[in-house]
């Protein structure tokens, strides 16, 4: 009997893949908050409330420079938003977070109150990877949450395969690596070997606060403080972990596959 049940249920359910990116992006959970915005001009001299609230020292203030927020370190806990009485740090509810350069994750300077979102790969690389990108994922000291939300993109709701993006088993079959974790000393050699086995041209994506900066483990001697110290990074996707929508946005942004209304 069960096979008829299965088929019947399958027909009833129809296609469960979300309309995004052709349709609008699904809403983030209301308590998620999305990207942050920092308007350092609102910070009074000497106020350190956000810095005191931040568990990972993602916020700093150098003399004469003003407040800076590093979203590459940020865990998006929102404690700084609650702590700030001046509305200098606010939530944007924007799921778009991926950037191409490490410094683009630093907020606060005049004109840099928000993230500088990633641009697409250059024309030549895009012509190679734009319709078919194979990634070798390397978990290098993460907690498994980033990996879980990478896997979620492969499920029927997100269906990453429809963009020609696929996670592959061998680095020899890959066009790039997708790194999670701060790159522990224990995974340093393994990451180097995996990277060396990926044929050129190739790209590297650092996913999650750990892979960008060390995340919650920043400052520990047992890791390398992110993947950037081991290999050159082409795309940074911040979060702890980034929401699947943020990850997908990052991939599609890099490949120039987002329609204008979702850019």
């Amino acid at each position, binding site marked *: *009997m*069960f096979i008829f*049940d*299965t088929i019947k*249920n*399958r027909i009833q359910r129809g296609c*469960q893949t979300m309309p995004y990116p052709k349709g609008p992006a699904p809403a983030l*959970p209301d*308590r*998620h*908050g999305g990207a942050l915005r920092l308007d350092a001009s609102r910070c009074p001299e000497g106020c350190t409330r956000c810095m005191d609230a931040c*568990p*990972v020292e993602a916020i700093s203030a150098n003399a004469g420079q003003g407040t800076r927020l590093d979203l590459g370190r940020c*865990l*998006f*806990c*929102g404690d700084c938003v609650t702590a700030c009485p001046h509305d200098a740090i606010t939530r944007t509810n924007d799921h778009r977070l991926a950037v191409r350069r490490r410094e683009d994750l630093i907020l606060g300077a005049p004109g840099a109150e928000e993230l500088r979102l990633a641009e697409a790969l250059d024309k030549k690389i895009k012509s190679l990877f734009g319709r078919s990108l194979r990634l*070798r994922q*390397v*978990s*290098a*000291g*993460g*907690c*498994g*949450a*980033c*990996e*879980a939300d*990478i*896997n*979620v993109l492969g*499920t*029927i*709701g997100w269906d990453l395969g429809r963009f020609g993006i696929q*996670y592959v*088993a061998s680095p020899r079959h890959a066009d790039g690596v997708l790194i999670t*974790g*701060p790159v*522990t*000393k*224990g*995974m*340093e*050699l*393994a990451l180097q070997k*995996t990277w060396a086995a990926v044929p050129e041209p190739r790209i590297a994506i650092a996913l999650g606060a*750990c892979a960008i900066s060390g*995340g*919650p*483990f*920043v400052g*520990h*001697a*047992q*890791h390398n403080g992110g993947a950037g110290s081991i290999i050159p990074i082409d795309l940074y996707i911040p979060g*702890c*972990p980034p*929401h*699947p929508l943020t990850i997908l946005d990052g991939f599609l942004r890099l490949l120039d596959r987002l329609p204008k209304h979702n850019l």
Partner: protein
Amino acid sequence: MNTLAPFFPITNASRISWASVPVFSVTKLVRLTSEMLHAGARLCSWFGVPDQDGTILVAVLALDAESTLGVARSEPVSGSYPSLTPKHPQAHLFEREVWEQHGLVPVGHPWLKPVRHTLKNAPANAPFFRVEGGEVHEVAVGPVHAGVIEPGHFRFQCAGEEVLHLEIALGYQHRGIEDALPGGPHPASMSQMEALAGDTSIAHATAYASVMEALGGVEAPLRAQWLRAVALELERLANHTGDMGALALDVAFLPTSAACGKIRGDFLNLTALMCGNRFGRGLIRPGGCRHDLEEKRLLALVGRLKTHMADVEQAVAWFWDAASVRVRFRNVGVVHPSQAADIGLVGPAARACGLVRDVRFDHPAGWHRFSQAPVAVWPSGDIFARARVRSLEIQRSGRYLFEQLDAPVDGEIQARLPAPQPESLSVVLVEGWRGEVCHVAVTDHFGRFRRYKITDPSFHNWTGLALALRGTAVSDFPICNKSFNLSYCGFDL
């Protein structure tokens, strides 16, 4: 309580003064611990506390039938002590860990090598156990695995297809969580607990918050305890559903795998509805919870939970209806009940060997003092049993959630948290979805952490996977592995 003497009896999530932990010579501590284990106690934790004159060994035991924990410690010791492992295999990794961290040699330990120690840029995990013989070959897998999964190394000794021995070498994920804790709590400590094992954020965060509350001499408000219990079951549902899908995928049964992959995400989104984060980060803080489940949100949660529970029960029913699935899991990857007890299995892996152990039931703390789900047990010890226990727990967690969400408790969600009391010890056990999460804190005379010991259920259970592989085909490794689905990062810390 007599059965525990001379260990100091404490209940889960409580605090005692360090001075009241009985002190024995190290040989006597080993002997007493051995007697207790022989009488049926479980070793929850065995660790060292650095002292000026050496290292103090601490034993934390659980007497499940009496809902009591027992602690005792040794005089400061250096050099060596008689190993527990030859008689009690459940101590083998604890003793290796103590040797690695404090240099104390357990004399008589049959396989003394590092647990997580890294030499320059890779774990120091050689040499591996080898089976010699003309027909024997070796298969090495990892650290980078074929899927999107954490790193670890598996070394199989095989004769043809048959696995004679599997050695599991971890440490690749070691990022120094325990090392960072002495002198704390630090500003990042809570976030590190939430990222200790990403899929077990709620259980570890609850354990840490409960430790801080016990040390401070307060309880979280009841409503916060209720919220934690709800989040813990949502975490269990998400992971068990994911595991059912993963097991289905590995035997190429796509209807269940496709459905469960999505439903797992639906459960994660319910946690995100509570606190914004799909893994529950930011929900739990020492003293209570950061987010409430106000009525409108509660109703939305119940409505969505109903849909997702119906979906998952349907997807799991397909799985059990298919003879081709059932036959693939029967008598594969068997761990016998006696082995399970010897190596100290916990969680669904233990319950799938017929062992009735569940912290929510045996050592209730927090909200579980008032309400519990029935313990799900299956006797056969094979992959079938591990899948069966999961699917029973999906049903029971769902029912438990509906009951709890139907009767919310009112009140505050955050209590004022006093500073930790000095010279104290606190033990907290939480039944995470993989099994027993154990946190033990010892404070110094300023009330700061002198030692903080974390034991993820995977620390007990990886040995179970190694045993399950013996005598099976190497090609059965993926389904055996999925049936345990253990944490690398929770082990590596």
